[in-house]
């Protein structure tokens, strides 16, 4: 049973079609990220769920209750904002009590729940402080506590970490994820930061131009992106254009490219002769010097030749730019100590399991 169903919602502002047939089923207790560049429709989707925007068509269900036309205050949501949105004229305790008062929770129970949630966000003793007396990270924890103390059925987070500095942001990712799992609350998280979505989410909705580019687990989206847009948006990737010459089983193919024939896997059902792109992540490519007596290639291993154009030391790895004979450029991460120099001829080796087909 899904806790939250977004069912073919559309939203237009004048001529702009902001959301096009967005559908996402969300299971109870799941942490879902809406990921995409600004203007992709992720925030509008969140606002439709919260009730601050009304979709032109489609439905939004909380459990089996249709809330499409319900006011935000009747939806039973908790919301966390990028700006924290704490009430500046209220103390921490008053901020937390505000939603409980609206729900007519008795004073004694109110007090108990505020104390409980403050200990969850590790801010005991801050009850009497005003938001302006707290650091950014503390304010965001209060905002989180304020959203959780009302025990909503859905937690909505709108880029909550975007205003924090990098170190704090990393810390808060795990803090939020850990808290979400302990409380077990269904959460929807809007972000443009792919690594944030990656480490926090059960599933990611990649959005672009008002449509869902892909909906899947972080692993799916990273290793088996549905399109070149998704591949380009999540992490770094190399792509080579080619044509399918042979299908080997359900999801294995041979592709003829300008760099030679490449064995790869990909989505099932692609036909022979289809124009495709082969995607390989930089960290999945091994290098060897050209002509080096390397171990014999495994049966599913691809080998391509090229020359090093630049080598950038990055601490944990060295990033190589390699120009292939065909003129295509490839980026390769080398973790070994053996430095390849600019101008060296190299052989790039990668398993067909690490190559993935993108439909052109």
């Amino acid at each position, binding site marked *: 049973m899904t806790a939250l169903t977004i069912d073919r919602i559309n939203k237009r502002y004048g001529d702009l079609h902001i959301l096009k047939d967005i559908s996402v089923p969300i299971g109870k207790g799941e942490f879902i990220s809406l990921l995409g560049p600004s203007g992709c429709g992720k925030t509008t989707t969140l606002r439709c769920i919260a009730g601050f925007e009304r979709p032109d068509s489609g439905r939004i269900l909380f459990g089996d209750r249709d809330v499409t036309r319900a006011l935000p205050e009747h939806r039973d949501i908790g919301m966390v904002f990028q700006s924290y*949105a704490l009430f500046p*004229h209220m103390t921490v305790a008053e901020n937390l009590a505000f939603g409980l008062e609206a729900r007519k929770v008795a004073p004694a129970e109110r007090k108990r729940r505020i104390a409980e949630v403050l200990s969850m966000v590790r801010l005991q003793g801050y009850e009497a402080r*005003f938001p302006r007396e707290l650091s950014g990270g503390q304010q965001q924890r209060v905002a989180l506590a304020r959203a959780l103390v009302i025990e909503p059925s859905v937690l909505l987070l709108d880029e909550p970490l975007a205003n924090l500095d990098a170190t704090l942001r990393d810390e808060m990712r795990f803090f939020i994820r850990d808290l979400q799992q302990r409380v077990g609350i269904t959460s929807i998280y809007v972000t443009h930061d792919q690594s944030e979505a990656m480490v926090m989410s059960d599933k990611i909705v990649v959005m672009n131009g008002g449509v869902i580019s892909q909906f899947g687990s972080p692993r799916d989206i990273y290793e088996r992106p549905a399109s070149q847009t998704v591949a380009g948006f999540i992490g770094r990737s190399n792509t080579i254009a080619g044509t399918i010459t042979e299908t080997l089983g359900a999801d294995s193919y041979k592709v003829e490219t300008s760099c030679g024939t490449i064995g790869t896997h990909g989505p099932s059902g692609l036909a022979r002769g289809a124009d495709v792109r082969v995607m390989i992540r930089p960290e999945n490519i091994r290098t060897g010097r050209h002509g080096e007596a390397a171990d014999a290639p495994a049966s599913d291993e691809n080998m391509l030749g090229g020359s090093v154009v630049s080598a950038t030391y990055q601490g944990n790895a060295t990033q190589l730019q390699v120009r292939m004979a065909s003129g295509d450029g490839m980026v390769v991460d080398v973790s070994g100590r053996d430095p390849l120099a600019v101008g060296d001829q190299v052989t790039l080796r990668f398993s067909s399991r690490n190559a993935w087909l993108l439909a052109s």
Partner: protein
Amino acid sequence: MSATEAAPRVETPTIGVGRIGPVWMLVPALVLLIGFFVLPYLSIITMSLREASTRAVYGEGFTLAHYATALGDPFIWRILGRTLLMGAIVTVVTLLLGYPVAYHLANSRSRWTSLLYIFVLSPLLVGLVVRTFAWMIILSNNGVANKALMAMGLVVFPLQLMNNSLGVTIALTHVFLPFVILPLLGNLQAISPDLAMASRSLGNSRMRTFLKVTLPLSLPGIQAGSILVFVLSISAYVTPAMLGGTGGRTMSVLVVQYLVDNFRWPAGAALAIIMAIVALIVVGLYLKLTARAMRRLP
């Protein structure tokens, strides 16, 4: 040498702007204020303490008699009370009318907003005398308003809409509306729309969100706007002089009558000073009161 002697003082280097700049920048305004505000005020205070004279503007000796006479005169108290009451009514009515306009302007993204801005500022775009004459045309016994009311059969005899406090209150409310809208607008625009959304998400209706979040946070705008309007209303001259008649006579009209019509300069000066002190006390009390309400704001 004593043990407590201070360590050698390090002169903090100051460059132009650091120390001198700000002081220099105050000079033009200070000159203006001293020349055209402080000095004239001192002269009026002195004048109010002089004896009356039939041969000159004021006599030789000093006296508190003008204050004593004025404060012992129920007529003066009545005019003073009317002036303050009218100021209070204009302030409250402009607030009630102006707040929704400012709220709408702050939250609207429509392209008609700029038109509304011009509309809001329109009272200030018309000259004072022209505007007041326009109000006379509208409010007089056979003016537009009365004719319309009689044509609709709502009244049989024309209503007394001017030559009393009512006419002055209507005209002042019209012209001072922008003075309450503009500070409020600035204030409301500075309140993040996220706050209202946060409140709604927590289960609060629009009304409760307004009363518990937006309204308290807009108190500084309310305070600034209402003080402006109050002070301007109680010191207005042309509007009460032209629309007030005897029934709507205010302190400023009375002061000018003393000076110009009756040639009682010291007594008129005393009235002006009394009015200024009362206004100062009222505004002071209001500030204290509102500061209490705003003590939780950042």
